[in-house]
């Protein structure tokens, strides 16, 4: 496999430099969020917000959001697994917790699970043997850790608890999948699913969050998760196509199959098909 560790290190250091500006922006918004949290401390939950959220949630359920559409499309809705997930999704909204806090806690639970999953992948010999995939897993794990920290900081600034646990819905699914992680493609497929769940969840959250700066943080992370997803789709396609030698930086662009130009983004618009509802990973 073609790979320059020095080049990769340089690229990653460059990416870390790019982050200094982004982190300054995030810090700047934190005081504002702390003020919002302080202003809401001790207040009764905003029933209008809960009603707005409940209406939005029902609309999402009707249109197949929060995973139901995928279950139906995949023929899983009638199975025991599908019915169990469906029952969870249809539970009524908790009315005693700020929806914004729930959203950030659930987002943190997804990030915690991603960190744990990439961490587990990095113990597998066929991941460690592949320098490019290993470097991607390490960098992506670190990025997810920073996303989780940012979400927990926002939850805390709003007066909520930090979510340190992994997502309760997807953790058993990942645990069940671990036995089947016998090659790089299986790991890439599992990671891509988690990245899609995160992307779709953060997309659904955009119309549920109450403040513009919260939406910007959510979308800022959503965009990066979607890049992870695109990269994993491309890597998965190259593995499936029997061209692992093209998983390289730089790659041999001329040798890439035509499909490599489109496989990373199968649709013109992201849809919240796999979105987790706000309360799914909330601290109870």
């Amino acid at each position, binding site marked *: 496999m073609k790979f320059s560790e020095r080049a*990769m290190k340089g*690229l*990653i250091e*460059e*990416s870390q430099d*790019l*982050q200094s*500006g*982004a*982190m300054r*922006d995030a810090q700047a918004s934190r005081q504002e969020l702390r003020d919002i949290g302080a202003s809401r401390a001790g207040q009764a939950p905003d029933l209008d917000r809960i009603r*707005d959220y409940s209406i*939005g949630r029902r609309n999402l359920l009707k249109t197949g959001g929060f995973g139901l559409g995928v279950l139906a499309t995949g023929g899983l809705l009638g199975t025991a697994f599908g019915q169990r997930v469906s029952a969870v999704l249809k539970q009524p909204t908790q009315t005693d917790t700020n929806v914004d806090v729930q959203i950030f806690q659930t987002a943190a639970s997804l990030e915690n699970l991603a960190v744990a999953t990439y961490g587990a992948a990095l113990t597998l010999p066929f991941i460690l043997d592949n320098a490019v995939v290993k470097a991607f897993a390490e*960098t*992506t794990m*670190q*990025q997810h850790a*920073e*996303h989780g920290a*940012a979400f927990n900081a926002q939850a805390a600034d709003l007066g909520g608890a930090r979510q340190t646990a992994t997502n309760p819905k997807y953790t058993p699914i990942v645990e069940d999948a671990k036995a089947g992680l016998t090659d790089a493609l299986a790991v890439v497929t599992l990671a891509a699913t988690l990245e899609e769940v995160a*992307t779709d969840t953060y*997309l659904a959250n*955009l*119309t549920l969050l*109450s*403040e*513009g*700066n919260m*939406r*910007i943080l959510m*979308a*800022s*992370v*959503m*965009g*990066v*998760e*979607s*890049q*992870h*997803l*695109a*990269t994993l789709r491309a890597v998965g396609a190259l593995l499936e196509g029997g061209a692992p030698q093209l998983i390289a*930086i730089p*790659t041999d*662009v*001329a040798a*890439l*199959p*035509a*499909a*490599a*130009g*489109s496989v*990373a*983004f199968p*649709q*013109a*618009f*992201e849809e919240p098909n796999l979105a987790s509802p706000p309360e799914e990973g909330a601290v109870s």
Partner: protein
Amino acid sequence: MRTQTAAPSSGDLAIGAVAAGLELLAVNTYGAALAAAGAGSLGAVPPAVAEFATTVQGHHQAALDAWNGVLTASGQSAVTSPPAALEATVNGMFATVTDVIGAAELALRLEQIAAATYLDAIGKLESDAAIALAGSIQPIDRQHIAVLLFVLGMYPVPETFATVDMAFDGGAMMPDAMPATS
């Protein structure tokens, strides 16, 4: 706290018009690149790059149609021309492109501007429909960025958080305001 509105506000429509203009510029630029490739002006064009340009042009056309749909449904005119100053800048840069790498670098800058503009818009839009539309496009543009970075020999996910640094506000954006890509 945001007041949820069913219909796009006047501010939403203004942002939508800017977004439509950027989408049209992207459609035109990818179209020009495909035409140049077809004419042999860019040298050898790898199949994956041709597929990328065709697919992504379609994405931007779909986004343009969506924003114009929002505008016309609210009684506004559809956007039929890109922002003039930015178009002039991009066309000037395109005139210097002689190969696939140059075309990919220009495409990367357009995608970075679009993604940053949508991120900025997501914080400012007021109606759920407009927020959802911008939110559904921004991650796709970020995916375009990832693939272009890979094609250009760079790490595909260099940022931990997407930023609004390159967001377009409707005014001119000169080349020296556009960050280098390498």
